[in-house]
């Protein structure tokens, strides 16, 4: 066995162990996991309680998702600004300039969202989507 192939041994072991681990977990869950006998009530949320009414899949208005997304986007803004703030001294004016550009772009994006009505609640009040 030459050097090249012997150096591959750790990788091979890693590879095999990954596959082995996945296989093991899958087998275990099959062996250990309980067997369910299908009865009429098996699919019910509360097999022994009150029969549920209606469906849980209620449509939630899109605004909730929008707000969640805006939160993620503008939250990440903070992450970048924080990273810059930590190294404020080292980065100096160029760093400041870069940050200003970054913030300006985000402000433009915010204006865009505002104007196109993404921040309005309810379709009736949303005005920015009309075409001119």
């Amino acid at each position, binding site marked *: 066995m*030459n050097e090249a192939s012997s*150096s591959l041994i750790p990788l091979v072991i890693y590879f095999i162990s990954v596959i082995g681990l996945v296989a093991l977990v899958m087998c275990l869950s099959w062996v250990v996991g309980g067997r369910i006998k299908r009865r009429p009530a098996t699919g019910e949320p509360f097999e022994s309680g009150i029969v549920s009414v209606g469906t849980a899949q209620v449509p939630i208005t899109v605004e909730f998702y929008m707000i969640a997304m805006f939160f993620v986007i503008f939250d990440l803004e903070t992450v970048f600004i924080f990273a810059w703030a930590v190294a404020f001294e080292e980065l100096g004016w160029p760093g400041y300039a870069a940050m200003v550009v970054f913030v300006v772009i985000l402000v*433009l994006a915010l*204006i*865009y969202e505002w104007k196109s009505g993404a921040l309005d609640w309810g379709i009736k009040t949303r005005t920015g989507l009309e075409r001119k």
Partner: protein
Amino acid sequence: MTFLDFQALSPLLALTATILVVLMIIAYNRNHKVVCTTTVIGLFITLATIPCVIGIDPVQVTQLLVIDRFALLLITLIALVTIAVSLLAYDYFDGNSGRPEEFYLLLMLSALGGMVLVSSTHFASFLLGLELLSISLYALISYPIKGLIPLEAAVKYLILSGVASATLLMGAALLYAGLGTLSFEQLGSGFYPEQATVQAYIVIGSALLLTGLAFKLSLVPFHMWTPDVYEGAPAPVTAFVATVSKGAIFALMVRFFVLTGAFEYQSILVGLSVFAIGSMLAGNLLALMQNNVKRMLAYSSIAHIGYLLVAFISGGITGGMALALEASIFFLVAYIVTTLGAFGIVTILSNSDESRDCDALENYTGLFWRRPALAGAFSIILFSLAGIPLTAGFIGKFYIIAAGVKGTLWLLIATLVVGSGIGIYYYLRVIYTMTLKSTSTEPIRIPVASGWVMLLVTATILTLGVYPTPFIDMLGDLAKSLT
């Protein structure tokens, strides 16, 4: 960052500024025509900055980007294609009841990603460009609200593209683990280490990297998403995916291979050859069975990237680099122009308000007699795809075979010949369908902007096919400067 750096980056900066301007225009004045016009003007400004850069190139802007002739050529190409797609999309969305304005925003973002990609020399900028390109594309693919087909296409592209990016990242991580750098150039200096462990890292890392790239280039066996996405996406977006997205990633691949010298690894060349042979055969054979023009073009694009790889692989042969690059770039340009034209025709015939694009083969019956100019242009485009003289595709194929013969890649060339032979069948089938007697007499309107785009595309195909000398001379210098 010096002033020179900013000057070098001016095409990218101009495009970024245009995106912001368009964003504000949409916010204050949502008007399709204004938005499209601004987009096109902005892209022309981007083009206008390129002559200012040509004098000072090549400029290495930090470790991340390099602006050289190669990057500039592809930036020009991307800008031109984006202009064409914008104009096609204007007519496609014209009269649409939805809101087409953001389309241009996403299109430009995607183009910006492509431009970053073609000039990146570092894994960080590579990934930045790639994600910018892809994420905008997810939204673009599902842009028109017409049933589930575009949505399915977008989700499929999202998942597979995500997998590809992950594979790619793993490859980059392994390369970093082995060599401790992410810059292509520094990777190149340590690419042939003494220690076998590091070599193993490099080979496996490169293999993962290639897998990721093969996903994006839709090489067999990673091509499954292509026909569905091409079929589902609105026609102008399909044109964009098939040209800019693939072209930019191929350019990146060229850059990576040239800077790192990954050609020297025999195993990588073998892997590429397998991709190439598989793509040429499977692409052409599967295209035979399609009755949908978009799907057929999707498979044919798989085969074309296979052809492209033949030239690329010949770069691994001693002394073959310059010709290989020249051939690859010429073929790439011919492919981009021709594919843009093909999907342009589909776009002209389709409208975003209909439930499906005009992509069934029978929709083309009798086009020759209903709209001779359009059918003539489509025939030239199909002949170019088939590689028949007088067209850019012929010179491209000539180049590929020349590079292959020089590299004595006989198996690949034989596959190419067989593949092209099969290819002729399905391209001709479309032309034949167009020559049949028409069943419909409904008039076809050719919108002005799209008409001009198609005229220019066809003229370019013919010019490159009949008198390619100036372009070839330019490519010759370019290829020399790259190596």
